[in-house]
Each structure stands twice: as C-alpha cells, then as structure tokens.
C-alpha cells in the first residue's frame, strides 16, 4: 500500500526523495520504496524519517484500516 502521508509530508517540507534520503542516511531508492509501499522500514528508520519531517510515527505510518 502506498504511503501517501509520507509523500505529502515530504512535499510539504519541500524535500526531494534524495534530500530526505541523505538526512536519514539511506539511499533514495529506499525512500522511494517506502513511499510506494514496496518496503516496510524498521522502527529505527521510521523514527529517523519522522524526525526529519517533524511528524509523529502515528501521523506517517499508522493506517487505521490495517487494524
């Protein structure tokens, strides 16, 4: 499932995938894979992304319909 919330948050901060990847210390393709829903990141990376985008874990990674 695509993570549109992450994409939106990144766009709101005016960051490219590459910028966010550099902040988090991962490859651009990893950020792309997370946004496309092809890869489930570890909690460690989720926290790094959240910090970079000033969002909480719930805001970016919690899906109501998944419960």
């Amino acid at each position, binding site marked *: 499932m695509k993570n549109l919330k992450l994409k939106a948050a990144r766009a709101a901060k005016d960051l490219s995938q590459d910028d966010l990847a550099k902040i988090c*210390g*991962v*490859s651009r*393709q*990893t950020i792309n*894979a997370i946004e496309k829903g092809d890869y489930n*990141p570890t909690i460690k*990376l989720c926290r790094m992304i959240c910090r970079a985008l000033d969002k909480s874990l719930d805001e970016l990674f919690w899906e109501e319909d998944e419960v």
Partner: protein
Amino acid sequence: MKVLSKGAKIALDIALIVFLVMFFVAAQMILVNEVTTNRTEVIKVGDGTISPSVKQNLVLGNSGNAQFFAKWWPEEDLGYITAVILRDMNNEMLFYSTGNKLECWSKEMRLKKGTYEVELVFFGNDSDFKTYFENIGVDTSGWEVADCFKEGTYTVNYEFGIKGSSSAITGIGIITILFLIIIASHLAIVITSNSGNTKAYYDERQLLARGQASNASTYSMLTYFGIYFLLKMGEFYLPLPDTIMIFGGVLLGFVVLATLCIWNNAYIALNQKPKSTLGLLTIVCGINLMGAIVNFTNAYRSEYFRRIELIENLQFRTALINLMMALTLLYVIILYVVRMRLDARED
C-alpha cells in the same frame, strides 16, 4: 553493514600485489626446463627384418609439472607402428603411446629432477607388436592393427622430449600481470577518490536485498552443481571440460547475485561512486576480452591445436574462461547502466 575504509582498501590492495609477486616468483622456481631431442631412423619392414628399438636419455634439470611428447615425420605412408615409452630412473614406465599416429603427448605429470629414458620401438608385424605390450603388462585385446603393416624401408625423423611448465608459466605470468593491472587500477581509484573520507555502507533495505540475493545465488549454484555432479556420476556426455563447467557454476552464482543486487539498487554501497565501480568493471572486462583474443589467437596458431580435440587445448580453455568472464562483466555493466537510466526516470 560497513564496507572497508580507504586505508583498509589500500592495505588490502598492497597485500594482494605482494602476494601476486611472491606467487609468480614461486611459480618461476618450479619451472621445468625443456628437453628436446631429434634423431633420424631408418626402419625396414618385411622379410622378418625390423630395426631394433632405440633408447635415449632425457635429463631434467628441475622438478615440476611437465608433459612428455613425441612427434615423427616419415617420408612415405607408414607401414609400421612406433611405440613410445617413457621410463623413470627406477625403470618404471610412466607413459606409453602407440598406434598409427604421428604425434603423442602425455598428460601433465609431476616429474622429479633426474634422468628419464625414452624408448622408441618399431614393429613390422602384428604378433611382435602384441607380444611386446603383453610383456610390459598392457592388455592388447581389442587392438586391431594387422592392416597397418606394409613392407618397405622408411626414413623417419623423430623429435621427442619433455615440455616443461614453460607454457603454464607464461600463462601464470600473463594472469599475474592482468591481476596486477586490475589491483593497481583499483588502488589508483581508491587513492584518488574522496570516498574514503565518508565511509561507505549499505542501508537496511539494501542489506535485506543483498541477503536475499546471496540466498538466491547460493541456491542457484547448489542446483547447478547438484545437476552437474549427477550428470558426472551418471557418466553423461558433457560438451565442455570440468574446468569450464565448474567455472560456469561460479559465474552463474555471481550473475544471480549481481542481477538481484543491481535490480534492487543494492549493488553499490552508499557513498560509493558508481562511476569508479563501473570504471573498474570496464577495465577488468577489457582485460579479460584482450586475454581471450590473445589466447584464442595463440591456440589457433599452435600446431598442437590442429592435432587434438579443440577443447583439450589449455590455451583454448583459458581463452574460453576469459571470454566467459568478459561477457559476464559486460552483462553486469549493461544491467547497471540500464538500472541507472530507469532510476533517473523514476526520480
């Protein structure tokens, strides 16, 4: 997962260069000198007359791997059969060859320094021929040679000797130089690049992808070698010699690993420069391609090549390995470039 730091890479490259030089020096020390002798014999066949056998000593200066060979050139069609026997200092037979042919080569043997005796025996009839071999413990049942004998006098030039590992040493020398060029190129890239300032590493998704790729690579190699050994045990005909078949399995593993890693963007670590890696791959690919061309040309030119089955030729095998390596690397380079283009479009 951290990849090696710049200092560690330089140290490793230097260690490899030292090892290669030492290996080459050690290989030189086991070089066996070539010993070759020529002689002309007049062989009479008919009226119960046959020339006696001739014996010649060959002195080997160094121990090492070597091949014994004998070649002969009769003025006319052969009407007799020559047997060539090589014995060591203890009079133990190391090699024999016979039949209505003009050239024979032993397999590569480990020969000690010393004197070896070569005996050329000429046979003018079937019974002498079979009796001789039965006396030295060779089973001659099934040898149909009665039609080979023809009366006449034949002048034949013989050349025989022990061919040392000189060709192998040349091969080792070429391979060593190629490796030295590769390592020196890598060293130059590492020293001139700035990637050493920031350590390269793989992120968590890349590590996962690499793990999956390693798994797939291992299983594909296991499957390949499983099938290969089954075919081998079943004595099925395999079109290529063992060296090539085994090398093919290793390459298969590498191709699977590289394909999955490249496709999942996990081949090159973060902070590593793709251009440097691609440059190095291109150099290795080019060197292998050159090696293949040189070895194919040499193999084609050699007299040995024309007289035996193509695939038995060592240089041909080396050329084939070079070619397989070059094609594999070319595939990796092309796949990497394609992936980079697709990535750029995605971006």
